[in-house]
């Protein structure tokens, strides 16, 4: 009778969770919003999406090979694919191919593998790439188009799409700025909010995603659906999305009540830009967010606060990427100070005394 050599200690059984499963579920949750975005923006978007994904996979494989790590488990976990996917969703849908390629390389090589690969990156790779692209290529990264769904007359065919993705074709005929961009520009020019919003913001269509914007950020509703699915399947906790959306909504509401002519209400902030994608899919990246429930509440609230500040008073109309990266930088500090109370001890780590109840002890 042959017996397996003894493992050092238990447990000898495992719950079956894996990184690959988590990644697959996140991609599944992204699928509705992604398909909707691809349908809305047609062939050029599809090409950009494919190029970005291909770039991250090739870059990841190259880095793993250079580092002498096995390809199969690390490529197979799907983490690189998800990074590329999230990056693609945050790009202007008709951006030229090299935006996807440069972004993909930045995300995997500079933001992830340089730090040691999966689990080691301090900043969200997709958002590092997005911000780097935004600063390096401001024109390409802010050229948005109005939706021209596949099958509609205005939708570009595959040939036209190739030209668009090559970066040669003029986009003027299709251009359609994002709501956040329009409002910001108009407000800066001294117009009143009611006038601007009357023409450029309809909560219903914003929720559905029938407006210009990044490839996969437009449909707040589908993103919310996917995000709730992730919470339900326990892939992500509720704390970051709840704190982030809650803080953003609260600030928007307070400021809106304070001065309705200059500060749009909560629906505008919740449904516009990358709010939903950020709250459920970006800020919840485990590696770059705190590990405790309370830490996550603080992290999410910080993201919400920064998004509001950047959108309202800073130089960019959209601030999700910046907000998440800034809070990523705070994660080690949050994890250092915010930790669970140890069983049988008070928050300072002193052993409880006799009959005292842990929560009442100061």
């Amino acid at each position, binding site marked *: *009778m*042959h*017996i*397996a050599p*003894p*493992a*050092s*200690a*238990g*447990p*000898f*059984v*495992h*719950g079956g*969770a*894996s*990184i690959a*499963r*988590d990644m697959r579920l996140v991609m599944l949750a992204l699928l509705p919003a992604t398909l909707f975005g691809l349908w809305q923006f047609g062939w050029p978007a599809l090409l950009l999406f494919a190029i970005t994904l291909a770039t991250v996979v090739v870059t990841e494989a190259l880095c793993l090979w250079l580092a002498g790590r096995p390809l199969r*488990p*690390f490529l197979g*976990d799907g*983490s690189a694919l998800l990074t590329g996917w999230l990056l693609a969703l945050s790009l202007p849908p008709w951006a030229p191919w090299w935006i996807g390629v440069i972004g993909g390389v930045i995300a995997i090589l500079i933001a992830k593998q340089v730090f040691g*690969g*999966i*689990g*080691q990156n301090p900043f969200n790779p997709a958002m590092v790439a997005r911000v780097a692209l935004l600063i390096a290529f401001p024109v390409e990264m802010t050229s948005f188009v109005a939706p021209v769904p596949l099958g509609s007359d205005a939708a570009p065919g595959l040939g036209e799409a190739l030209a668009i993705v090559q970066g040669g074709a003029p986009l003027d005929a299709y251009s359609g700025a994002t709501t956040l961009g329009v409002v910001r520009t108009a407000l800066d020019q001294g117009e009143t909010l009611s006038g601007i919003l009357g023409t450029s913001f309809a909560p219903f269509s914003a929720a559905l995603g029938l407006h210009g914007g990044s490839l996969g950020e437009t449909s707040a509703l589908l993103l919310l659906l996917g995000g709730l699915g992730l919470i339900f399947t326990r892939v992500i*906790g509720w704390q970051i999305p709840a704190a982030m959306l809650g803080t953003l909504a609260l600030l928007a509401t307070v400021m809106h009540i304070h001065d309705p002519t200059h500060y749009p209400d909560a629906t505008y902030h919740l449904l516009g830009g990358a709010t939903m994608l950020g709250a459920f899919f970006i800020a919840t990246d*485990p*590696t770059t*967010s*705190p*590990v*405790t*429930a309370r830490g*996550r509440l603080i992290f999410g609230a910080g993201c919400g606060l920064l998004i509001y500040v950047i959108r309202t008073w800073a130089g960019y109309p959209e601030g999700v990427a910046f907000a998440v990266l800034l809070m990523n930088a705070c994660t080690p500090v949050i*994890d250092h100070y915010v*930790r*669970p*109370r*140890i*069983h*049988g*001890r008070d928050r300072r*780590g002193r*052993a*409880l*005394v*006799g*009959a005292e*109840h*842990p929560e009442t002890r100061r």
Partner: protein
Amino acid sequence: MTALRQLLRRPANRIHPLRGGVHPDDRKALAASAPITELPLPARLDLPLQQHIGASAAPLVRKGQRVAKGEPIARAQGAISAPLHAPTSGRVIAIAERPAHHPSGLAMPTISIEPDGEERWHPAITPCDDPFALDPAHIAERVAAAGVVGLGGATFPAAVKLNLGASHPLHTLVINGAECEPYLTCDDRLMRERAEAVIDGARIMAHALGVGGILVAIEDNKPEAAAAIETAAARFDAITLIRVPTRYPMGSERHLVQALTGRETPARALTAQLGVVVHNPATAFAVHQALRLGQPLIARALTLSGAAIARPANLWVPLGTAVETLIAHCGGLTEDDARLVSGGPMMGQPLPSHRAPTTKGCNAILALGAAERAPGRTMPCTRCGRCVEVCPCGLVPLELAAYIRAGDLEGAAERGLHDCLGCGSCAYTCPSQQPLAQYIAHAKGELAARARARRKQAETKALAEQRSARLEAIKRAKREAMARRKREAARKQAEQQTETEH
């Protein structure tokens, strides 16, 4: 006003919330329907002298000596220790080092007995009619003499825990029938089949402790055991059955006490600080046998289970039976690469050899098939925080593991390493399959070894200092004696001189 307060008061048997925990597939169906059957007497029994926490027992028999069933063969040494008794009548064939029931596989002094098949009881074993007439200290003495230890796996001498009433104001005895480890069904079967005896043992223990209330806590995945206990306890007002939710590690002593009372046991302290003492149902049964029948602990119920066991079973096994005998009795192994585990799959220990004997603390032998085991493909930690979420002790296992990997064990100790109960929920739930519990176990062991080495060093140093002080004192004494003699001689010479001068 009082009525209102009464109304607002928590219902008496409310289960208080616990933090963390996991819901592993309990796999109890493999063995739960198998009644406890007696194992035929094996051809040889090996009884290691160390089967409990504390000092090892000292042999009372010689090689070749004949022993009767229940006869003491090794006596307890020191305050925390337990004696050993012959599980059957026979002849002592060896007192030598043999592989022990321990993951290291190291040898341990062991008394080997060859049964003669007569099952002749030791004459000193006599039933006791009314244990409740005995005074509490006397009960603890008898429990100690019977070699009863905590049979839930902790193997802490039960009598020491029965004496806690002397040092702590106690009010409740909790019988921990949670049996939250997957696969394990021997407590379940014992409570179903011997509920009266378990309740009787619990009442005797309560008498010894001087407590008025007994809570029997059973996880709600064992309705038959709960029903049997409820029936057996119906006559006694002091006994309350509480069905606790099935959640690992509900059977952790301090967590069970928290679920039942809502109060947390202070770190590094005993539940007795809250007035509660926790014992296992198998221990209660052993106390019943020791007090009512006068029989020492010489056999126990244990579960043989796992997908690689041909016929999973619950067996009544004489202590010292080799694991391979048990496996053979259950039809052998069905898989070549089975992993043998002593205890549950979460907190059990790997068994290096199927020749190891079963001991007092062994509540299960599992042979886990390849499909049941953790696949063991470790990926880097992604900081997902699930280990933090499930940790019932409020630790940050991923952080402890990072400190331990970096070799900073003191850093890990500052962050609560010693508050870890070792339940393994973190490793069980980790998507990256990081061996978190294993890291922590390693660090605890290493720190304990270092502390031992430090103590030893300090002792050696103290001894060396004492020795040099002693040598110094001797030298000084010699010098002084020499000086005295010289003075003496000088004086005598001077006297002689003066005498001659006169």
